[in-house]
């Protein structure tokens, strides 16, 4: 059932969709995860619900293309249109099973930086900031980040932790620091999937996308990335996954741009 022709983003959407379990309440966020929710909901997770920090809950994908989570198609059919603080309340109660966060820079312990490259007082690059990222990273039960795999983006340690993963990687760092949720479970990149040990800590290489190699991934990663034994190939998107992706992104706004 695997398709031979798909973009890296389409594969990332499929991999992200597989992280959604049936019945999950998913803090969806923006961009590729909006498509991942749509794919999962149409395939293996028919009762997954989506929560959007703009103030929406849904049990099915929107009937029109979404450039942002706040676009009007996302409101029609919504189960709840409310304030952000109410949506955050559910997450603070531990009711959000899975969150997605877009990453600019991630480190070996799953910490995300979307704020500053370099000294915050005189940054080399000012990134847009947390948005809801820090909230998801701290409060959702488990979370996943997606980013383009480049050596400058997968770094040994981020200089600024916007959205905490496992901190300094010492055991129980999250619990010691009072973080409610369980932390990151996967980093989905354009080349591979990284995962974390059951109790958190350092990311390992869990699968490599078709057409790429372990060596290539390691060369593009800013720390000495450990493979987990024999690294399997990431299963490519199935036809139903691709069909659903293309239905919700008919112009390739998210999945066929550079």
């Amino acid at each position, binding site marked *: 059932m695997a398709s031979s022709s798909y973009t890296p983003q389409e594969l990332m959407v499929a991999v992200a969709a597989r992280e959604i379990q049936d019945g999950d309440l998913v803090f969806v966020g923006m961009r590729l995860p909006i498509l991942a929710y749509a794919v999962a909901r149409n395939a293996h997770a028919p009762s997954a619900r989506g929560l959007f920090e703009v103030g929406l809950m849904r049990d099915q994908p929107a009937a029109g293309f979404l450039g942002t989570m706040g676009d009007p198609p996302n409101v029609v059919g919504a189960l709840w249109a409310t304030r952000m603080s109410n949506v955050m309340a559910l997450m603070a109660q531990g009711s959000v099973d899975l969150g997605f966060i877009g990453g600019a820079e991630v480190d070996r312990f799953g910490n995300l930086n979307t704020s500053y490259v370099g000294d915050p007082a005189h940054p080399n690059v000012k990134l847009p900031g947390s948005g809801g990222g820090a909230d998801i990273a701290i409060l959702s039960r488990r979370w996943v980040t997606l980013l383009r795999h480049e050596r400058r983006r997968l770094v040994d340690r981020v200089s600024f*932790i916007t959205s905490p993963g496992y901190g300094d990687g010492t055991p129980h760092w999250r619990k010691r620091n009072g973080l409610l949720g369980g932390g990151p479970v996967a980093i989905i990149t354009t080349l591979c999937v990284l995962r974390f040990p059951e109790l958190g800590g350092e990311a390992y290489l869990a699968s490599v996308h078709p057409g790429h190699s372990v060596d290539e991934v390691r060369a593009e990663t800013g720390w000495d990335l450990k493979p987990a034994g024999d690294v399997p190939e990431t299963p490519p998107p199935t036809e139903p996954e691709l069909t659903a992706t293309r239905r919700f992104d008919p112009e390739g706004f998210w999945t066929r741009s550079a």
Partner: protein
Amino acid sequence: MAGKVMAMAEAVHRFVPDGSTVALGLALEPLIPFAAGHEMVRQGRRELELVGPISDALFDQLIGAGCVRQVTAAWVGNVSEGLGHCYRRACEERIPRSLEVRDHSNFSISLALWAAAWNVPSLPTRTLLGSDILATNPGLVAVDGLAQVQAVRPDVAIVHVQRADETGRAHAWGPLGITEEAGLAAGRVIVTCEELVAPDVILSDPNRILFPETKVVAVVHQPGGAHPSPVQGYFKRDHAFYRDYAEQSRSVDGYLAWLERWVMGVPDRATYLQHLDLATLRVSQHRMSEPVDYGFE
């Protein structure tokens, strides 16, 4: 009561002086009061402190125009396109001027406004623990295993809504983000609206009224005042316009050319709208809500 209905130029002139703390873009991606922001640029407003959750391009435009001294927000950029280029230039190169940034998360900026609405110095939360946002924003403190979020009190909140009456009672629908707490926290509220309607229309559904009218100081009838952001029932989001802005604003010259074309070179929003293909942006298929019965006798 002095009339609250006025032109955008008058509302901005009277109620958004230099140095104001201004809350904008409170529903996140929809209902962003771009027309009000552009009028601030035209009037050469300076030393503003902007407050919002995420800002979809409007903060970037105001920063590029040199209006802004400080930003208190969770995210500043261009939601469908990514980075905010003027924001980057201001933070990285002090172009056109330096910018102070008070980082928040979406949840914490909401709580900062609830703290102001309820008139307490701060509110506690479980978010931000373990984030360097907590370490770097002086308005956030870790105490006893919780983050304490200090109140943020805007001088003025500007909201764009679907309909309002002459006293400023406003109906808005779709996701509301942090609109309600910002309006309650603010000293005053400017309402800009797609439709200025009779009070009867608004009072027929008091549960949908956003704020007490006592907070509202100005009502501006400004159809299309949120373009390029979407307005449920009225306008789709103009994705291409955001893309175009992102591309042009990569350079200072490109940004200034964009600003000249869409802001400085037009006297008002009505003229701005003449340059758009409004027919493709307008919502034409209506989906009306089921009414409810407020009868009492």
